[in-house]
C-alpha cells in the first residue's frame, strides 16, 4: 500500500466535474463583492466618498472604519492593514469593499467610490531602499537581514591574495518576479451560521492552503472567533494561497457582517495577477575562492538582495531559506552568506514554492558554471569535486548524513543516456521547418532542499492530527489541505499501512476548522513528511488505545470484533522532535532542517539561433524522496514543479509599470508553458529513507522548482556559448547574449 500508485481519493469527483470549487457555490441570496483598489504606489488617503449620482441603495460599502477589531492581516508582523486606512503603500492595495446583488452592480459601484489621494514619493529600487526615504517599514525599510558565518571566510579570502593555486571568482546573478499562476483565481464565500452553542457567527469557505492562517488573521479583525473556516476544493496554490486568502476571507467576512447576507468574492484573473503576491525578485553577488586545478570551493561570500514589496508577509522566511541554501549542495568550509530583504512600494511578494531556494540555487549553479568556464574545467567535474559527502558540515554547521547528492547525480546521468524521446521541440508547427537553425545542448544542475520548517519551526508549532475510529472505518482529521498534491490519498495510505487494513476504510475529514485540529500550514514540503508522521503516530496511538480497550493487541479487525462498545474512539497526536536537533535562530548555527532532499536535473533543449527561442526536448530528474508513499503522486509533484521552473527559466516574468503595477496582467502576456512547450519528462524516484518521516518519506513539494532553470542556462551555454546570468532567459535576452558572444 505504501509505495503504490493508488488513484487519488478525490479523482472521481475531479474527472466528472463534480468537485466543488468556491466559484461553483452560490448561496441563496448571496451578494457579489468587489474591491476598490489604490491606483497609486504610495499616497495619503484624504477622503472616501460615495458618488451622489450613483444608486447605492442595494450596495454594501465597507471601509477601514467598519472593522470591529484590529485593522491588520496578522502574519509574521502586523504591518499590513486589512483595508488601507490613511496611507496606501502599493498599487492595487485594497481601500474599500462593495457588495451588491449582482456582479455587474458590484463592479459598477467600485468606480463610484470616490477616494481622494495625495500622492507621496514612491520607492521601487530595492538597491535604494535600506535606510532611504520614504520610510515604509521599521526604522530602515529592512524586513529581514541575516548573516551566516561558517569557518573563516575573511581569512580564506585574505590568504587567497597572491596564491597562484587559488583564484577569486565573482559573479552577479538576477532573477525576476514570478507569478504562481494557479489556474483557479482567489475566491472566498462568507455565510452566516449559528454555531453549536446557538451563537451567531460566520463560515468562510474558499480556496486556500492554510485554514488556520485564516482563523488567526480573521479573529484579530473581528475581535472574536465565532466563525469556522472550510477549505473548498482548491484549484492550485503553489504558495499563492498560503497567506493571501486571509485577506480575501477578511474582506468577505466584513461585507457579510455589514450586509447581513452571504457574500461571494471571486477575483477576476487580471485583478488576481495585479494584486496578489509573487516570487521575490533577487539580485545575488557571489564571490568565491576556488582551487585552480579542480574548481574546489575554498571560500564563499554571497550577498543577496530580495525585494519584499510593500508589506512583510512571509518574506523573512524566504530570506532565511535563501541564506541557508545559497551555496547549493556543495561543501565549503568558509562561508559568509548574507541576505537582505527590503521594502519597496510594489505589491507585496510572498510565499511561492521553493521559498528563496530557486533564486539562490540558480545563482549557485550559474556560479559553478562560471568557475568551470574561467578555469577551463568541465562543469560536471566541478560539481563532482564539490558535492556534499556524508559527514560534511553545512554552512550552519549541521552534520549531513545519508546524503543523496551523488546518488541522484549518477541516476540522472544514467537515465539521460537513453536516446531522446521523439516528438516535441523542433517538431513545432510554424517553426520554419527545414529552414530553422537549431543548436542542441544539454544542461545539468543539482539541488538540495531542507524539508519542513527551518530550525525549531516544527517544535514550536506542534502540528496536530486526530484519528477517529467511526464504526469499523477510520477518519483522519487534519488541517492539511489537498491542493492537488494528494494529501487526501496519502494520509489514508499511511493509516491503512500502519493498521494493516484496506485503504478504502480510511477517509479524510474535510478541512473545517470546527472539526480538525491545527496541523500547521500546508507549506514547506511538510505535509507528507511532518503531518504524515503525526498521522502515523496517531494510527499507532489508536491501535494502542484499542488494544487496551479490548485487552489484547493483534489483528486490527480481530480487535474490532472484540469491541463491546461502538463509541467513536478518537486520538490526537502532535509533533514532537526527538530532541536531537539543535538550532540557534540568533546565530543561524545548528541543525537547520531535520533532513534534506536531493535532486539532479538534466535538460535537453534546442536553441533557435535565428530567434533565441528555447525548445525543450527532455527533462530528466532524479530526486531523493525518502520514500515514495505514492509514486504517481510523487512524480506528478516533481513534473509539475519542474515545468514551473522551465517557465521561470525562459518565459515567465511579471513586468511592472512606472507605478509598480503588473503590465502583463493577462494569460496572453504572462506566458506559462503549454503542453507543446513542455518537454517529455522522465522522473527517477530515489529512496533514501528519513527516519523521522512516515515510512521514511521526505518532503518533495518544492525541490523540483529549485534548479531546472539553472540546467536550462547551462544547456543554452553549452549549445551556443551564450552566457545568461539573469532570469528569465526570454528569447530577447538569449538573442542579445548570442550577439555578445560574437
Amino acid at each position: 500500500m505504501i509505495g503504490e500508485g493508488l488513484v487519488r481519493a478525490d479523482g472521481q469527483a475531479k474527472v466528472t466535474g463534480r468537485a466543488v470549487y468556491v466559484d461553483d457555490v452560490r448561496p441563496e441570496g448571496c451578494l457579489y463583492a468587489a474591491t476598490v483598489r489604490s491606483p497609486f504606489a504610495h499616497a495619503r488617503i484624504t477622503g472616501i466618498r460615495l458618488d451622489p449620482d450613483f444608486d447605492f441603495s442595494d450596495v454594501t460599502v465597507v471601509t477601514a472604519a467598519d472593522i470591529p477589531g484590529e485593522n491588520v492581516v496578522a502574519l509574521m508582523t502586523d504591518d499590513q492593514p486589512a483595508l488601507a486606512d490613511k496611507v496606501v503603500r502599493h498599487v492595487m492595495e485594497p481601500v474599500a469593499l462593495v457588495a451588491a446583488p449582482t456582479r455587474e452592480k458590484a463592479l459598477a459601484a467600485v468606480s463610484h467610490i470616490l477616494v481622494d489621494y495625495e500622492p507621496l514619493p514612491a520607492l521601487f529600487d530595492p538597491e535604494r531602499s535600506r535606510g532611504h526615504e520614504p520610510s515604509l517599514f521599521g526604522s530602515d525599510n529592512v524586513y529581514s537581514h541575516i548573516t551566516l558565518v561558517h569557518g573563516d571566510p575573511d581569512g580564506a579570502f585574505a590568504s587567497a591574495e597572491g596564491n597562484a593555486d587559488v583564484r577569486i571568482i565573482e559573479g552577479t546573478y538576477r532573477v525576476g518576479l514570478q507569478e504562481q499562476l494557479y489556474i483557479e483565481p482567489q475566491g472566498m464565500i462568507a455565510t452566516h451560521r449559528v454555531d453549536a452553542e446557538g451563537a451567531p457567527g460566520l463560515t468562510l469557505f474558499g480556496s486556500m492552503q492554510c485554514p488556520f492562517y485564516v482563523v488567526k488573521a480573521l479573529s484579530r479583525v473581528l475581535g472574536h472567533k465565532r466563525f469556522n473556516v472550510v477549505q473548498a476544493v482548491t484549484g492550485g496554490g503553489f504558495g499563492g494561497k498560503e497567506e493571501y486568502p486571509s485577506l480575501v476571507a477578511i474582506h468577505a467576512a466584513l461585507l457579510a457582517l455589514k450586509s447581513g447576507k452571504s457574500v461571494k468574492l471571486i477575483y477576476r484573473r487580471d485583478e488576481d495577477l495585479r494584486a496578489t503576491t509573487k516570487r521575490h525578485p533577487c539580485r545575488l553577488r557571489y564571490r568565491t575562492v576556488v582551487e585552480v586545478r579542480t574548481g574546489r570551493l575554498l571560500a564563499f561570500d554571497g550577498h543577496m538582495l530580495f525585494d519584499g514589496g510593500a508589506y512583510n508577509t512571509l518574506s523573512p522566511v524566504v530570506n532565511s531559506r535563501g541564506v541557508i541554501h545559497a551555496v547549493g549542495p556543495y561543501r565549503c568550509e568558509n562561508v559568509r552568506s548574507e541576505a537582505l530583504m527590503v521594502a519597496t512600494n510594489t505589491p507585496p511578494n510572498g510565499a511561492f514554492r521553493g521559498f528563496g531556494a530557486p533564486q539562490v540555487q540558480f545563482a549557485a549553479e550559474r556560479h559553478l558554471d562560471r568557475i568551470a568556464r574561467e578555469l577551463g574545467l568541465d562543469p560536471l567535474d566541478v560539481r563532482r569535486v564539490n558535492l556534499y559527502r556524508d559527514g560534511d558540515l553545512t554552512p550552519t554547521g549541521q552534520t549531513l548524513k545519508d546524503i543523496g547528492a551523488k546518488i541522484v547525480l549518477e541516476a540522472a546521468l544514467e537515465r539521460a543516456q537513453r536516446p531522446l524521446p521523439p516528438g516535441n521541440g523542433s517538431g513545432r508547427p510554424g517553426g520554419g521547418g527545414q529552414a530553422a537553425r537549431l543548436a542542441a545542448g544539454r544542461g545539468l544542475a543539482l539541488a538540495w532542499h531542507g524539508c519542513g520548517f527551518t530550525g525549531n519551526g516544527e517544535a514550536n508549532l506542534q502540528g496536530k492530527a486526530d484519528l477517529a475510529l467511526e464504526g469499523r472505518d477510520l477518519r483522519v482529521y487534519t488541517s492539511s489541505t489537498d491542493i492537488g498534491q494528494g494529501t487526501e490519498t496519502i494520509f489514508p495510505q499511511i493509516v491503512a499501512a500502519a493498521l494493516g487494513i484496506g485503504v478504502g476504510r480510511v477517509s479524510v475529514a474535510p478541512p473545517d476548522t470546527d472539526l480538525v485540529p491545527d496541523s500547521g500550514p500546508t507549506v514547506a514540503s511538510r505535509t507528507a513528511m511532518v503531518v504524515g508522521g503525526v498521522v502515523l503516530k496517531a494510527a499507532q496511538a489508536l491501535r494502542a488505545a484499542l488494544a487496551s480497550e479490548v485487552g489484547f493487541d493483534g489483528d486490527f479487525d480481530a480487535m474490532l470484533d472484540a469491541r463491546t462498545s461502538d463509541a467513536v474512539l478518537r486520538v490526537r497526536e502532535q509533533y514532537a522532535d526527538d530532541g536531537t536537533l539543535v538550532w540557534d535562530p540568533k546565530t543561524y548555527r545548528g541543525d537547520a532542517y531535520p533532513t534534506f532532499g536531493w535532486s539532479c536535473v538534466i535538460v535537453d533543449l534546442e536553441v533557435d539561433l535565428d530567434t533565441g527561442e528555447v525548445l525543450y526536448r527532455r527533462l530528466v530528474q532524479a530526486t531523493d524522496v525518502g520514500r515514495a508513499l505514492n509514486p504517481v503522486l510523487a512524480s506528478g509533484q516533481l513534473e509539475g514543479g519542474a515545468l514551473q521552473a522551465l517557465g521561470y527559466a525562459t518565459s515567465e516574468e511579471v513586468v511592472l509599470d512606472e507605478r509598480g503595477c503588473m503590465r502583463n496582467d493577462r494569460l496572453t502576456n504572462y506566458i506559462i508553458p503549454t503542453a507543446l512547450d513542455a518537454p517529455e519528462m522522465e522522473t527517477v524516484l530515489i529512496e533514501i529513507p528519513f527516519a523521522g518521516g512516515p515510512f521514511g518519506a521526505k518532503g518533495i513539494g518544492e525541490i523540483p522548482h529549485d534548479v531546472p532553470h539553472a540546467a536550462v542556462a547551462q544547456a543554452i551555454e553549452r549549445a551556443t556559448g551564450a552566457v545568461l546570468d539573469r532570469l528569465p532567459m526570454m528569447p530577447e535576452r538569449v538573442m542579445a547574449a548570442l550577439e555578445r558572444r560574437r
Partner: protein
Amino acid sequence: MILRFQVNATDVELDVLPMARLLDVLREDLRLTGSKEGCGEGECGACTVLIDGRAVNSCLVPVFQVAGAKVETVEGLASGLHGHERLHPVQAAFLEHGAAQCGICTPGFLVAAAELLAHTPHPTRLEVREALAGNLCRCTGYQKIVDAVANALGRQGS
C-alpha cells in the same frame, strides 16, 4: 430571448440575454459548474465544451450562437447515473495515470481530449500535445496528461 439547444443530450429552453457567455449560462442558469473559468479570454481552456462535436472555449461563445446546437460538457462525458457511472475512457485514463492534480483544468482537458480521440483514437504524443495546447495546466507539467490521452484507447502512442 428564448433559446433552445441541447446540453448533454437533454433539450433545454431558456430565457437569456443573447450576448451572455455560454460559460455563464451553463454555470449560472443550468448549474453545470463542471466547466471552469480560469481567464475569461480564451487562453486557459478550463471552460472548454463541445459544440456539435468541436472543442471551443465557452467563455468566448455568445450563447445565442448555440441555438439548435448540441453542447457537451464534462458532466456529459460519463454515462449512467452518479454512483454507478461508466466513465469515458479518457476520464478513466486520467484517474489511472494521475493526470488530475488540483483538478481545476481537468474538465477542459477531458473535453478537448474527447474531441481528439473521437477522430484520432490513437494519437501520437506530439498530436496529443498539439491538440491540448489550448488548455493550461499548472500542476502536472502535462506529462501524465499526455500519457493518459495517448493511451486512453488502449494503445501506446508513439
